[in-house]
């Protein structure tokens, strides 16, 4: 039961265009950044890397038990902490719809 509670939101079926945060993406899925709900150091680093609203990113992998999330943008890979990933809102895209 405990286990189910943790995995519940990930199993949710969703349509492209739904707003979710990065942790809810499955690995390999691409999404367009909608907004970054924070300000501060990491945001300024992410913005400096071009992770701004409108940018398309791919989630490469995520470490278990709320570990870092690994993202790829324009062939560059980077990792951000789970809490940070929760504050980045994206819209999943199917290949071909946005690119």
């Amino acid at each position: 039961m405990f286990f189910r509670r943790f995995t519940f939101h990930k199993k949710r079926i969703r349509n492209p265009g739904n707003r979710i945060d990065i942790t809810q993406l499955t690995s390999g899925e691409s999404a367009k950044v909608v907004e970054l709900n924070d300000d501060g150091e990491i945001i300024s680093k992410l913005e400096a890397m071009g992770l701004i609203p409108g940018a398309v990113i791919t989630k490469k992998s995520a470490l278990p038990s709320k570990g870092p999330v690994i993202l790829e943008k324009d062939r560059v890979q980077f990792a951000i902490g789970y809490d940070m990933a929760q504050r980045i809102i994206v819209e999943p895209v199917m290949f071909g719809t946005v690119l």
Partner: protein
Amino acid sequence: MKKIILAGNPNVGKSLLFSRITRIGIVTANYAGTTVETKVGKFNFQGIEYEIVDGPGIYSFDEYSETDQIAVKLINEGDIILNVIDATNLERSLNLTLQLLKMKKPMVVCLNFWDDTVHKGITINTQTLGMLLDIPVITVSALYDEGIPKLLASIENAKVSSLAVEPGEQWNIIGSILCQVQTLKHRHHTLLERISDFMLHPVGGIVTAVFVLLSTLLIVRYMGEGLIKFVFEPFYSQLYNPFIQGIISHIPSDLIQGLLLGHSSDPLESFGMLTSGVYIALVQVFPYFFTFYFVFGFLEDFGYLPRLAVVLDRLFHKLGLHGYSSIPVMLGLGCKVPAFMSTRSLTNKREKVLTAALIFMSVPCLSQSAMIVSLGMRYGVLTVLSIYGILAATAIGTNFLMNKLYKKGETSEFFTEFPSCRLPTFRILTDKLRIRIVEYFAEVLPMIAVGVLLMNILNAIHVLSFITDLIRKPVGWLLGLPPDIAPIMLLNFLRKDASVALLVSLNLDAYQFIIACVFLVLSTPCIASLFTLIKELGARTSLKIFCVIFSATIVITTLLHLVFSIFQL
């Protein structure tokens, strides 16, 4: 003399370019944040002398960490900006370039990693790029030492760009520049990229970490042992020792002979400058130093450290830190001095303090490790493993408590960029190894000389016997160690390997050896790392860290003594 500043994002190869231009050797590695201080060099090009400065990389002009401050200050001071760009990552690099253009200083753009663009399927029209940015653009491969003369020749053409960037417009401008100069070809994943993907996979990451750790241990152990047995030990006993004994025996003074050669034929017990000193530094420690930095240098240049940091992030979160702190801790496996220095790239003080404590406690430095392992193996592998187990447990326990008790501050978020995995060239590896070896001998030889001299003086004026009497009871009761350990504890301050080596003369049993080693590792930092710590964190904070760790040491060694006494009954 014109002052040229190397400016750019982290890990675009500024330091390597600097050392190629100036021929000054500096340690470089394939991860963001290798450089934490500035290095100044000079070079002469066609009769004109220039000063060139290398500093930490930045993503933007926002100042969050100490390294950011250093970098921004540098850029403000420069006459000419040499903007180093990762050619395989043009979009992000241009963001900083546009910000640099606003400084209205003469500038040249240097596209580094030019060799990489070919197999990454990237084509960049540098002429158009130069035209759009309105400054010279030169392609370079610092790794293979290509394009440097052209770059130097372009410096006199450095100019202030007329490109004006309105605030908020930069991403549109970058987008339009990219459209005009860059074409990307689709290509298949290379083997190195597959390896990288595996290292970042939730399960693959852990598998790789275990594999790397075990193979590092095995390589360092067997290669180190092999070097000792077949190279350094024969060299010492058959060539060096007879030679030095022959020469010194002609010196007419007993006092000087005693200082230089010591008073025993066993090089671990004699405690002479030229016998024990050289034996410990060269025969016992250096082979491990060499093999460790050989393997570690490879891992650094391969780009593994930030990938390991991701895997370790969860563990470090429990200690109030995040994965990036694991890089200073890993550096601490070798030597605490660069480890403490690299805490500069951490953003807040809380993180720095917790990381420093972890560096301090978690593992002994390489020199001390080498001695603990080589002497500990006389008692069996279990003894060695228990020492490391106890140290790791103490470090994690203490840090866990410090995290709970230390004034709350926000733990900053984890962020790291992954450099491409690269197979380092042989030349880069040997250059780096050479720099580290020179630094090692420059530090170890004077320290051992001072140590031996000091101990002999203290002995001659009866200070040692006074201290020995003073600590006889507390050391006996609490730690169960003989009082003769007093001079060893003092020596621990100068050279942490020599102090462990001297334990031989005490004829300890396995339990006492474990307690003594744990005590020597934790109780005092060596003088070089102490000064680095004070420089990085200030005297007050360093003193606090020192007190916390010292109390933890007393508690843990006393507990060990208690537990072992119960066992032995």
